[in-house]
C-alpha cells in the first residue's frame, strides 16, 4: 500500500534532456547564507567579495531585520587586488575584529565569491590558518558561494559539504538527516521517525556547533533537499550510506521518503501505518482543498531553486497539474532520479538556461502558471501570465505532511487571485 503507483511506460528519468547554455537568470550560491545563518545559531558567514556581493545579500534578504546579522561581506578594495599578501593580512585583521566583537560566534565560514576566486585568494589556506589562531574557541571553514561556481541553492550544498570532513568520527548506527529546514519542519520529521522507533537521529547542520553529528561507516543518511550532491559525496567518502527516495514534498513524497527510511530500519507495515495514517489523511484533505484551483492547469518551471523536479512530481501527481517544461539549473539523477521515475515522459526536461529562448517557449506555451525567479515574475504577469516566484519555496516551510497543503497553496494562490480579480468595468 505504501509503494509508489507503478508507472507503466517511459518516465522522465529516460527522457532526453534539453541542455542549454546561454544567459542565466539565477542567484549565485551566496544567497543560501540568508537561510543558513538563521539555522546555525553560533555561526557567522563572512563573504570575501565585492560591493556587488554585499548588495546581492541585502537584496535577497529583502528587509534588514537585524542591526548586525550573522553575515557580512569583507569588501575587497583596490589595494587588496594589488598584492596577495596584503589581502590575507587584511582578512586576518577583519576576522580578529569580528570575533572579538562577537564572542558568541563558534563557527566562522569564509565564503568565496567570484572576485576572490578570480584573484585566486586561497580561502582554504586562510581558514586553516585562522582555525589554528582562534582554536579552540572558533572553527573556521571555507566554501564557495560564487556565481562562477554555484547557483542559488548550491551554496547550501557547498556549505554543508565543507562541514563534513571535520565532523567527529562515530561507529554508531545513526540516522542523519541532511539539509537546513525550518525548525518546525525538522521537528515534525524527527517526531514521525522517532514514533516508528527509529533512532538516534542527528541533523546536519546542527543548531550549534557543539551539537554537530558524528559520521562513520554505520551512518545512514537521507537528504531533505534535492540540491545536496556535494554533501552527499562527502558523506559517502566518510563511509556513510545514502537512503534514496523521492523528496518529502506532498503526501506521496513524504510517505515514500519515510517508507524508504523505515525499510532501512526494519519498521513493519503496521507500525508505519499507525504513525503515518492520520497525518497522511490530513495532508490529503489539505492538498485537495488547495489543489482545486490547480486541477487540469498547465505549469512551466524556469530553472531556479533545484526543487523543480520534485515539485513537478508533486504538482502533477497530487494536484492534477500538467507540466509543460521542467527546467533545473543542473540535474543530478543520483538525487532526483526517484522523483523522475514517478513523472511520466512528456514534459520537456531542460538543464541550464538561455533565458531569452526559454521565455520564447513560455510565451508560445502560455502556461497557466510559470515558476520563476523574482526578476521575471512581474514582467511575465504584465504579459498576462500567472507566476509563482521560486524563492518563497526555499524560505517557507513546505516539506512533510503538515505543510503539504501550504505547499499546494503557494501554487494555487496566484491562480485563484487571477480568477478573483475583476478590474474591468462591468459589462
Amino acid at each position, binding site marked *: 500500500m505504501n509503494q509508489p503507483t507503478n508507472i507503466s511506460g517511459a518516465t522522465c528519468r529516460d527522457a532526453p534532456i534539453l541542455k542549454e547554455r546561454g544567459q*542565466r537568470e539565477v*542567484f549565485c550560491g551566496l544567497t543560501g547564507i540568508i537561510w543558513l545563518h538563521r539555522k546555525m545559531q553560533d555561526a557567522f558567514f563572512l563573504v570575501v567579495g565585492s*560591493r556587488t556581493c554585499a548588495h546581492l545579500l541585502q537584496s535577497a534578504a529583502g528587509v534588514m531585520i537585524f*542591526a548586525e546579522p550573522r553575515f*557580512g561581506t569583507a569588501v575587497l578594495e583596490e589595494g587588496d587586488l594589488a598584492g596577495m599578501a596584503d589581502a590575507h593580512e587584511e582578512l586576518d585583521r577583519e576576522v580578529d575584529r569580528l570575533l572579538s566583537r562577537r564572542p558568541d560566534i563558534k563557527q566562522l565560514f569564509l565564503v568565496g565569491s567570484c*572576485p576572490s576566486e578570480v584573484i585566486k585568494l586561497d580561502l582554504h589556506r586562510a581558514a586553516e590558518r585562522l582555525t589554528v589562531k582562534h582554536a579552540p574557541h572558533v572553527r573556521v571553514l571555507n566554501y564557495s558561494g560564487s556565481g562562477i561556481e554555484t547557483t542559488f541553492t548550491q551554496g547550501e550544498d557547498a556549505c554543508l559539504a565543507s562541514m563534513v570532513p571535520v565532523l567527529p568520527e562515530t561507529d554508531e548506527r545513526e540516522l542523519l538527516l541532511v539539509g537546513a529546514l525550518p525548525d518546525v519542519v525538522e521537528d515534525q520529521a524527527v517526531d514521525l521517525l522517532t514514533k516508528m522507533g527509529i533512532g538516534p537521529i542527528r541533523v546536519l547542520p546542527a543548531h550549534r556547533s557543539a551539537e554537530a553529528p558524528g559520521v562513520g561507516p554505520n551512518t545512514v543518511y537521507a537528504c531533505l533537499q534535492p540540491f545536496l550532491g556535494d554533501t552527499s559525496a562527502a558523506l559517502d567518502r566518510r563511509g556513510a550510506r545514502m537512503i534514496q527516495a523521492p523528496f518529502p514534498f506532498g503526501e506521496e513524497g513524504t510517505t515514500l521518503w519515510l517508507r524508504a527510511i523505515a525499510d532501512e530500519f526494519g519498521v513493519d507495515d503496521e507500525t508505519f501505518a499507525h504513525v503515518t495514517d492520520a497525518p497522511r489523511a490530513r495532508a490529503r484533505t489539505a492538498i485537495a482543498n488547495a489543489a482545486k484551483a490547480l486541477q487540469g492547469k498547465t505549469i512551466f518551471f524556469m530553472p531556479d531553486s533545484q526543487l523543480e523536479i520534485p515539485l513537478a512530481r508533486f504538482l502533477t501527481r497530487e494536484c492534477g497539474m500538467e507540466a509543460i517544461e521542467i527546467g533545473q539549473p543542473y540535474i543530478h539523477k543520483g538525487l532526483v532520479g526517484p522523483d523522475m521515475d514517478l513523472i511520466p515522459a512528456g514534459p520537456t526536461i531542460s538543464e541550464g538556461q538561455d533565458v531569452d529562448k526559454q521565455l520564447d517557449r513560455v510565451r508560445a506555451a502560455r502556461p497557466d502558471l510559470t515558476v520563476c*525567479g523574482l*526578476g521575471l515574475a*512581474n*514582467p511575465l504577469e504584465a504579459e498576462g501570465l500567472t507566476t509563482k516566484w521560486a524563492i518563497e519555496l526555499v524560505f517557507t516551510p513546505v516539506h512533510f505532511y503538515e505543510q503539504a497543503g501550504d505547499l499546494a497553496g503557494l501554487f494555487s494562490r496566484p491562480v485563484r487571485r487571477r480568477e478573483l480579480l475583476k478590474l474591468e468595468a462591468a459589462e
Partner: protein
Amino acid sequence: MKLTVWTYEGPPHVGAMRVATAMKGLHYVLHAPQGDTYADLLFTMIERRNHRPPVSYTTFEGRDLGTDTASIFRETCRDAYDRYQPQAMIVGASCTAELIQDDPGGLAEAMDIPVPVVALELPSYQRKENFGSDETFYQIVRALAQPMERTQEITANLIGPLALGFRHRDDIEEVKGLLYEMGIGVNVVAPFDATPEDIAKLGQAHFNVLMYPEHAETAARHLERTCSQPYTKTVPIGVGATHDFVAEVAQICAVEPKKDLSRLRQPWWSKSVDSTYLTGKRVFLFGDATHVKTAARIARDEMGFEVVGLGCYNREFARDIRKLAKDYGVEALITDDYLEVEKAIEDLAPEMILGTQMERHIGKRLGIPCAVISAPVHVQDFPARYSPQMGWEGANVIFDTWIHPLVMGLEEHLLHMFREDFEFHDEAGASHHGGHAPKPIAEAPAPEPVAAQPEAPVETGGDVMVWLADAERELKKIPFFVRGKAKRNTEKFAAERGVSEISIDTLYEAKAHFAR
C-alpha cells in the same frame, strides 16, 4: 578590505542599470557572472516595473575563465542587438569581469554594431552606485548630444530622474507644472522614459533643470560647456526652495516668476494651532546629500523642528554637507556604515528621524518615528498614488508624510491626561498606526538596562549613574514618545551636577531646567 553589512549604495553597474532601465530603446550588455542578475529584481519587485530591465548579462562561469569569456561577451552583444534592435547600446563590466580585463568597450567596437555603442568604465572597487548613474548618463549624453538650434519657444530639459529613484516619477510632473506656469515648455526628460533619439535632441533646450545632482551633475556641466545651456542649482523641494527655484528659472529665462499657489496648503497646515506640538521636535536627517539639504531647510524653517544631527552617505557631496551642518550648528556625519548611523542616532536620541529605508529600520529598533526622505527606498516608497516631493504639491505631501509617524497634537494632550487609563495607555503607540506601535529595543544586541529589574537600582551608561526605583517608576509614567527625551535630559542634568543617584526630585528638577 572593509566589513560591510547593509549598504546604502550598490556597485556602480547598478547605477548604470538605473539609467538603462529608466530609458527606452537602449540596451545594456553587462559582462558579469550569473549571480549578478539579482539586480533585475530591484526593478521588477521594488519598483514593480512591468518589464525586464534591458540588460543582457554574459553569465560566464568558472570553466570559461582564461578561455573564451571574450567570445561569450561578443555572442551576448550580437544576440542582444539582434533580438532587441536598440537605438543605442551601453557595454561594461561588473566587479568580476573588471578583474578579467576583457575590455567590453574594445570588443564591442570591433563588432561593427550598426548603432552607437557607449563603453562604460566604472571602477567597481573604488566607486559606488551614484557614481555609476552619474557617469553612465554623462557618457550617453557625451556620445549622443550635440549643440543644436534652440526651440522657438523657451524650453528646458529635465535631467536626473531615473529608475529606483525616490518619487522621481511624480517630481517630473510637478516640475513640468512649475515651468508651465511661467510659459516654459519641456524639451526632453532624461533618462526617465527618454530614448537615445531624445538624448540626441537635448541641445535644443534653452537650459537644463538639474533635478537630482547625484545622477546628472556631470552631464549638466557637460551640456553647459558644449551646448551653452545653463542649469538650475536649486532643487525645488520644500516651499522656500520652490519659490527660489521659480525665481532662478525666471532669471535664467528672463520671464515673469509666475506661480499658481492655489493648491499649496503646507504653510497654513504648518501655522494652524494643531501644529504647535511640532515646535522644537528634535530631528535627525540622513540620506543622499540633495534630499538631506532640502529636508534640513524644511525641517527648520517650514516645520519648526530642531535639527540635531545630519549627514549623507555619498562622499562625493561631503563638502556640501559639512558646510550645511555648520550652518545648522551640528556635526556632519559622512559615512556609508549603517552601524555608525545607528550609533549617532542612539547617542542623539532624536524624537524623529528623516532618513532612508535603513533609518526606518533603525527607528523601528529604537522606537523612534521615522519618515523616508531619500533613496535607498523599499517597495512601500513607490506608492500607487501621486506623491511627489518637489513643487507645491510636494510640500503638501512632505508635511503629511512627516507628521504621519508622530503622535498628533490633540492626541498628545489626551495621552498626558489619561496616561493611567488602561484602554488609552501609551504603550499602544500612536492610535492611527494600528499594529505599528514603536517597539522597544528588543532585537538590538545590547541589553536595555532600564526595562530590566524595577526594584533594584539600575545603572546606565559608562559612568555609574543609578535610577532609584521610584524615579524609574515615575519615568515609566511619562508617555513613550517623550520618555526617551526625559530620560536623556535627566541623565545629562545629573551628570552635569555630579549627581549619581537619580531620584524623583532629580527628574523634575531636570524637567524644570529644560522646560521651554
